[in-house]
């Protein structure tokens, strides 16, 4: 009894608002569209994840076991806190090529090796955006 009353009520509402049925049709149509898009991209997610796992597993099987090697010491060890002269020479050459004028290096600041690579990439981007004056 309750159900039949509800149905007749909804029928009356639909009769009063003819645009409502069209809106509900459109809503269903859009829901189906979103389902297809999410289904397609979800399917791709599963496919790409599986593919990635298989390829990484296969490359793990192919890679030869690493041979343990003795750590090698640099021929001219750099004292702690001092820069390798080769790095200073490389920085000097880079400045010379960029500025093409006399210059003096006042200080060289080294990055903390613990800095995450994303932060380093961010720093590189910011410095790259600076205009050389």
């Amino acid at each position, binding site marked *: 009894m309750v159900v039949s009353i509800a149905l007749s009520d909804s029928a009356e509402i639909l009769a009063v608002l003819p645009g409502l049925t*069209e809106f509900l049709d459109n809503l269903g149509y*859009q829901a189906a569209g979103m389902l297809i898009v999410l289904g397609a991209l979800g399917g791709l997610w599963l496919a790409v994840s599986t*593919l990635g796992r298989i390829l990484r597993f296969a490359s793990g099987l192919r890679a030869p076991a690493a041979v343990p090697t003795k750590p090698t010491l640099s021929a001219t060890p750099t004292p702690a806190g001092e820069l390798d002269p080769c790095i200073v020479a490389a920085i000097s050459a880079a400045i010379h090529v960029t500025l093409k004028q006399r210059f003096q290096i006042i200080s060289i600041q080294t990055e903390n090796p613990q800095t995450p690579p994303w*932060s380093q990439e*961010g720093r590189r981007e910011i410095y790259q955006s600076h205009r050389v004056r």
Partner: protein
Amino acid sequence: MYDNLVNFLHLTAFTLVTWKMLVMWVVVLVLFYLAVFKEFEPLLLVPIAFGALIANLPTQGVVNQAPGPVLAPFDGTVVAWHVRVGDEVTEGMKLATLAPSRSNSRDHPVLVATSHGKLIAISVTEGASVLEGQTLLQIFSNEPGGLYYYLSKGIQWELFPPLIFLGVGALTDFGPLIARPITLLLGGAAQLGVAMTFLGAALLGFNHGEAASIGIIGGADGPTAIFTANKLAPHLLSAIAVAAYSYMSLVPLIQPPIMRLLTTRKERLIRMKSLRPVSKLERLLFAVVVAIVCILLVPAASALIAMLMLGNFLRECGVTDRLVKASQNEIINVITIFLGTSVGMTMTGDAFLRAETLKIIGLGVVAFGISTAGGVLMAKFLNLFLRNDRINPLIGSAGVSAVPMAARVSHVEGQKADSGNYLLMHAMGPNVAGVIGTAVIAGYYIATLGGH
């Protein structure tokens, strides 16, 4: 000398300038200002604006059609002919008065010549019923059509958007997406704006084809918007293209307030794990898998998907350097000029100065906003299930295509919360997923709404 001057004045086009053209010149100036001085998508807006300027000048040899058969623009009846066989026809001349069989404000009752030449045959008598596409008369001339009559075929025949996608594919690094494929879902959720705007447009009285084309603005993908509009609502092409490209340039203004509104400070501080390296084989297989899956699912979007993945395969295979460079530079640049100006050419006063244009521009911003929200909310939803490697919801907004501007916005917003948080590459995942998502939903609309 006086007679010569008077004769020359009769040959000038000053008298052919209409008030609609003058209004459109103002619109063109606004577009030029936005493109040149505000740098809003200048690569597209400058050609579009210049094309619009040309379209609103009484030109010769630019947009005139090639002489040949003149077809009925709609189903209806020929009320009266205004020309006879043997007459010399010029552009703008009234050919016939037609009565459309159904009432539609866009069906113009007066048939006007768009080419010049000699009228050699009239195929239908007065009072006869005609069907859309039926030949009404034949115009003959040895002269060809105008430059943009031919170049605009690139849009009508759907050549330009797929060719742009070839370049986009060659420029796009899908690595971040392959490394974190769950971000594909963010690109999918960001299509919510497309779906919701469809509903809004339908409520405002647009038909389904028009509503779908307007909704695609929310995908923030210019070529896909043009591709869809050309199939489903070609008469709205200019307004849709202008809205899509304008809003793409306004992404840094539209998105941040929505992103901040939908996220907590704690969520904005989430640092995501570095992405794993992706092998060449994975990249190549990705291009092939996406092409196969998407084309099988929505064949209507085959042209876009196929060219996108062809461009990407060329890029990743590493043995076609010359082709990649051509796709990334010469092809995409040349096509961008032709596409932009061809779209601008459709911005005639009659087509653009309508209330519909304002509605489209209004709906476009709604579409962008909802798409942004969809991506952010999906990221928050996924975080309910992710424990170790949570997603910063700010990258969800990059699910609207607008590559790479939307990803930059995510990055900048992330840095406002935590200057040491670099979200750029993480945001590129949903960003390029959005390109695929928009192509899929466009294919769904084209397939189901009968755009063929």
